[in-house]
C-alpha cells in the first residue's frame, strides 16, 4: 500500500513566516472570525459596527472590521462576543464561529503585487464589492489591511498548507522574475542602443557587398 506522507510533507500552521526581498508573509493567530448571514444591517446596528464592509482589495483598518462575502453574508472580524452568539437571531441573521475554520495570512512589501497577480485574477485597479476570490486555486477572502502594501487573506484551514506551499514555490519565482525582468529590460535597451549606433549611418546598405 502506498504511503503518500513523503509526497505531501506536513506544514506547521503555528506562526510560520516566509520572507523574500520586498515581501514578508506570516500567519496571524487568534483572530476572531464569525460568518454572519441574513439581515446584515440589523446585525451591524446591534453589534455597533456601522463601518464599511470591505470587499476584494478594499482597505480595512483597525482590529475590528467587516469583510463582505456576498450581498447577505459577511465575515465579522473581532466583533464583541454578544453580537456573535452562534445560531439563529430573531433579528433576522444567522451566526457561525469560523475562528478556527479560517486561517489568516498577512502579506506585506513592495513585491506584493507580484504575488497577487500570480495567485488571483482579480483586478488590482479597482475594488470589488465581495472579498471572495480564487487565490492559489482555493476560495479565499482578500483585502488590504492598514495600508495598501499589506494584504490579508482568509482561507479554509484544511487548505492552508496548500496555499502556504504555493506561496513558498511562487515567492521566489515572483521575486526573481521581477528582478530578472528588470535585468533583461536593461540588457535589451543597452543592446538596442548599441545596435542603433552601429546601424544608423546607412541601414539599407548594411547587407551589401
Amino acid at each position, binding site marked *: *500500500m*502506498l*504511503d*503518500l*506522507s513523503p*509526497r*505531501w510533507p*506536513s506544514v506547521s500552521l503555528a506562526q510560520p513566516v516566509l520572507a523574500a526581498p520586498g515581501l514578508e508573509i506570516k500567519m496571524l493567530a487568534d483572530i476572531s472570525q464569525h*460568518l454572519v*448571514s*441574513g*439581515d446584515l444591517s440589523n446585525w451591524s446596528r446591534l453589534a455597533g459596527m456601522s463601518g464599511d464592509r470591505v470587499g476584494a482589495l478594499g482597505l480595512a483598518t483597525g482590529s475590528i472590521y467587516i469583510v463582505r462575502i456576498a450581498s*447577505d453574508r459577511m465575515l465579522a472580524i473581532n466583533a464583541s462576543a454578544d453580537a456573535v452568539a*452562534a*445560531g*439563529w437571531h430573531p433579528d*433576522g441573521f*444567522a451566526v*457561525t464561529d*469560523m*475562528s*478556527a*475554520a*479560517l486561517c489568516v495570512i498577512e502579506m506585506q512589501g513592495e513585491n506584493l503585487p507580484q504575488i497577487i*497577480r*500570480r495567485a488571483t*485574477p482579480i*483586478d*488590482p*485597479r479597482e475594488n470589488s464589492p465581495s472579498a471572495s476570490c480564487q487565490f492559489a*486555486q*482555493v476560495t479565499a477572502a482578500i483585502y488590504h489591511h492598514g495600508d495598501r502594501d499589506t494584504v490579508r487573506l482568509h482561507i*479554509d*484551514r*484544511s*487548505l*492552508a*498548507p*496548500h*496555499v502556504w*506551499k*504555493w506561496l513558498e*514555490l*511562487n515567492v521566489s519565482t*515572483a521575486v526573481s*522574475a521581477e528582478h530578472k525582468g528588470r535585468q533583461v*529590460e536593461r540588457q535589451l*535597451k543597452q543592446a*538596442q*542602443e548599441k*545596435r*542603433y549606433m552601429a*546601424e*544608423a549611418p546607412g*541601414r*539599407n546598405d*548594411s*547587407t*551589401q*557587398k
Partner: protein
Amino acid sequence: MTARRHSEGGEIDRTKRLSFTFDGRTVDGYAGDTIASALLASGIRIVGRSFKYHRPRGIWGFGIEEPNAFVDVTNVPKPGPNVRATTEAAWDGALIKSVNAKPTAENDRHAFIDRFARFLPAAFYYKTFMLPNWRVFEPHIRDMAGLGILDKDWDSSGFADQIHHHCDVLVVGAGPAGLTAALKVAEAGKSVLLCDQGWRLGGSLLHRDGEIDGEPAARWIEKTVARLRARGATILPSTTAFGIYDHHLVALNQQQAERPDVLWYVRPDRIVLATGAIERPLAFGNNDLPGIMSADAALAYLRRHAIVPGSRVAVMTNNDTAYEPATALARAGARVTVVDCRAEPRIDAQHRQDGVDVLAGRHIASAIGRSAVEAIRLDDGRRLDVDSVLVAGGWTPTVHLYCQAKGRLTWSEVLLAFVPDGDVPGLVAAGAANGSIGLSEALASGADAASACSGISMPAPKSTGHELGLAIAATWPRPRGKERAWIDYQNDVTTKDVELAARENYVSIEHLKRYTTLGMATDQGKTSNLNGIALMAELSGRTIPEVGTTSYRPPFTPVPFTSFAGGSVGVMMNPLRRSPLEICHRADGASLLEYGGWLRPAYYGAGSPEEEIAREARQARQSVALFDGSTLGKIEVIGPQAAAFLDFIYYNTMSTMKPGRCRYGFILTEAGVVYDDGVLVRLDENRFIVSCSSSHVAGVHAMLEEWRQDRFDRSQVFIHNATTQTATLTVSGPNARMLLQSVGLGCSLEDASLPHMATADGMFEGVPVRITRVSFTGDRSYEVSIRSDRAEILWDRLKQAGKSFQAVLIGLEALMILRAEKGYIVIGKDTDGTTRPGDLGVGSPLAKKKADFVGRRSLLTEDASRDDRREFVGLAVAPGENPLPTGAHGVVRENGRVRSIGYVTSSYFSPTLGKPIALALIERGRRRIGETILIQHLGAQRRATIAAPCAYDSEGLRLNA
C-alpha cells in the same frame, strides 16, 4: 550554389560563435541566429520531411507562418519536441533532429512513399483500412504518424509562471501600426501592454524599407519604444497572443530561453489587434521543393541575418511588394529574375537599374529538381536554371484573433483577401491585419485605433520615404494541373486533393478541411487557407466570399503544455486538504493516503499494512479505538425554516427530531439515487448540523445552497459550511465511555443523559466541546468535536489516558473493516449511480413521509420499482476460502451465456470473526438470502452464499455495551 552568409550586416553578434548538430551534422552560427537562419546560412536545404508523402522540405518562412521546418531540440536548458526552427533561438551545443524522418531528413527511409502518392489521396485512411479491421494497421500507422518525439526522460526543472494582468489597452503586434497605436494610447494616459511574437519590436519595419517622420525606421522604432517605456507601458517581446476568450480575456505565451514559458492572462478594457499579414504561396508544380520560400522571408533573412538564399534567384509574384526583396537580393549579388504574373506590371525604373530581369505576363509552370529546386519551367515552356525561387502571392491579413472574438470578415477586391468588417465591441484591428498593407496606411490605421480606444483624435506619424504599392492581380491555384501543386505544405494537401473533395461533394469549406486536413493542426491555415478556398470556389462555381472561411480557434500557435499547467503540477495539481491532527498522525507513524481529497491515515505502524490494519481492527473490538473523524462534514443549517428545508433535502423526515438528538438519513439526487448518507444533529429549534461524507462536503454544501436559493425564503434559512471549524475525535469500543470519563469532558456520559444518537455540550480545559453518540463501527462510540486549533491537546490527552485501556489508533482501512462487519454502507463504494434507497432496504420514508423531498418523483417511476433491482446484501464464503475480490461479478448462465447479476462492492478478512466478509449489490438479493451463487472474476468462478449485510452483532447490543 545554395544560401550563403555575408561577412557583415544583420542582427547577429559575430563575436559570439555557436555550433549545434542537426541530424548529426555540425552547424555553425552566431548569437542572434534562429535555428532556421543558422541552417540556411550553413547551406542545409532539407530540414524536414512532409507529413504524408515524406517529401523533402526546406525553410519557407521567417516566423510563425513556417509550415515545414519543425525540429526536436535537446541538450538545451529548455528542450522541446516539434518546435518551429524559425522561432527558436539557436543554442550552442544543442542536439537538433528533424521530425518525421528516419534516420535523417536528408536520407529518409520512408521517402519511397512519395512514389505511391497517386494511391494515397485525401481520405485514403478512411477508405482503405477497413478490413479486416483498423487495429491490424493501427500500430504501424501510429508509428509513422505525428511529428516530433517526446523525450521520456525529460524532467521539468521548474513550473511555468502564470500571470494575471489588467490594463486599459492591450496592443497585439509591435509593427508600425501596433507601435503607433500603443504610443498614442499611452500618451492619452492609458495603461498599455504591448506584445509581439518577435524578440525585437518593429514587425515588418525590421526588414522592409521605411522612413517615418523623416527618420529611418530603425530610429523611429527606438524612439517610439523609449517613449512607451517612459510612459510606463508593459512591453513583452517574444510573446504571442494565441487566444481571445470570453469577456476580453486574452492569453499570451511569453517565450523564455532557459526556463518554462510564461502564460499571461490579460484582461484589458480594449484590444488593438495589429497582428500583420502573412505572405501567400503561389501554386505551381512541385512548389514544395527545398529552395522555394516566401519572398518576404528571404528579405528578412537577408536584412536581419545577412543571408542570401541563392545566387540565381527567380521571384514569382502577382504584386508589387515582391520587388523590394528582388532588388535587395540583386544588390546583394544574386542574379534575379522576376516572373510577374501580371501582363503589364508598372515596374519602377529603379528596379531595372538594379539588375533585376522581369518576365511580365508569365508564371512558373513547375519547379524542377530532386531534393531541391534546380530550375523552373515557365508556362511558355522555357527552362530557367535557378537555385532559389521566391514566391510572393499577396498578403493574407492575420485575422485569427479577430475572428476568435467573433469578428466578421469581408472580401476585399483590392487586397484579394478577407479583411475585418468593422470593429468588435472593445476590439479594433489595425495595420496589415485590417488590410492596410502600405506603411502610410498602417501608420494611419494605428493612430485611428488609438483614437477609438482613447476617444482622443491624434495625428498619425507620416511615412516620408518611397513606398511600393500592391497592385495585386488574382493568381489562384488552377485545377487539373499535370503535376502536383501544394496548397498546404504542413498537411501535404495538393490541388488534386481539393479536386477530389469537390468531386465527392465535400464542397463546404468545413467539410473540405476535415476531408483533406487542409489548414488543420499547428498551421491553422496560415499560408494555405485562402488558396484552398479559392480553388474550391473555382471548382464549385462560386465566388471566394461564397465559399467563406473555416472557424478560427485558439491557439493561434502551439503553446507548451507547461504553460497551461503552470504551477498546477505534481503535488500542487489539486489542492489537498489536511487534517488538523496531521502532525500528530505522522509522529504516531501513520501511513497517509488521499481519501476523497483529504490526506488521512490509512493505518499506523511500521509492520506490513495487512498486519497493522488487522491489529487495529481486532483491538478496536476488544478495547477502545481512537479515530480522527475531523474530515466529516459539518454544514450548519440555520433559521426558522431550517427544519422544513431539511425535510425537503433528506429522504427521511427530520423535522420531528428533538433538539439534542441525531438522526441518520439519506440525501438523494433528483434522479432518486442515493447521493450521500450521514447523521443530522439538531442543536436547537433553528440550528442543525449536516454531517455528510468527508469527500462530499463541497457537493452537499453546493446542493443545499442551490435548493435554499431556489425554493425557500432566503431570509429564513442559511447554510454555513463550518466543516473545518471543529475537529472530530472519535472514541469507539467497549471501553470508550470509561476512557472519556477518565479524561473529563464536563458533562455526564451516562446512557440516561447521553443515549445513542444524542448530543451534549461539554468543556475541555476551558474549550467548549460537543459530544455526539453516533457509531460507524457498531460499538459504543462518541464523537468529540473541539475547535480545530485546540484539537491536538485533546488528542494527546486521549492517547495518554487510553494507555490504561489498551486504546489503539486506527486508520481508515481498519474503520472500513469494522463498518463492513456491521454492513454499514459507504456511498459510492457500496452504491453506484443507480442505487436508490429501496435497494438498500430503506423503503419506509417513501411510503410514509408526507412532505415532499428531493428525488421523490424519481422513486415512483417504473424503473425504481422493478422487482429485479440490485439489492444490498452480504456474501459469505466457505470456511478456509480467501476473501472475494472486490468488483467480482455474481453471474448466472442463461441461454448458454453468462450474465452479471451484480457485483462485490466491499470485501475484507475480518480479524474479529476470523473469516472473510463481503458486501454486494445483487439482483433481487434480499429475497435470495441463503442462496448460493456463482462469483466470476478474471475468468475464474467460485461460489458464495447470499447473507444479510450485517455479519457481526446483528442485534446491536454492542452499541450500548
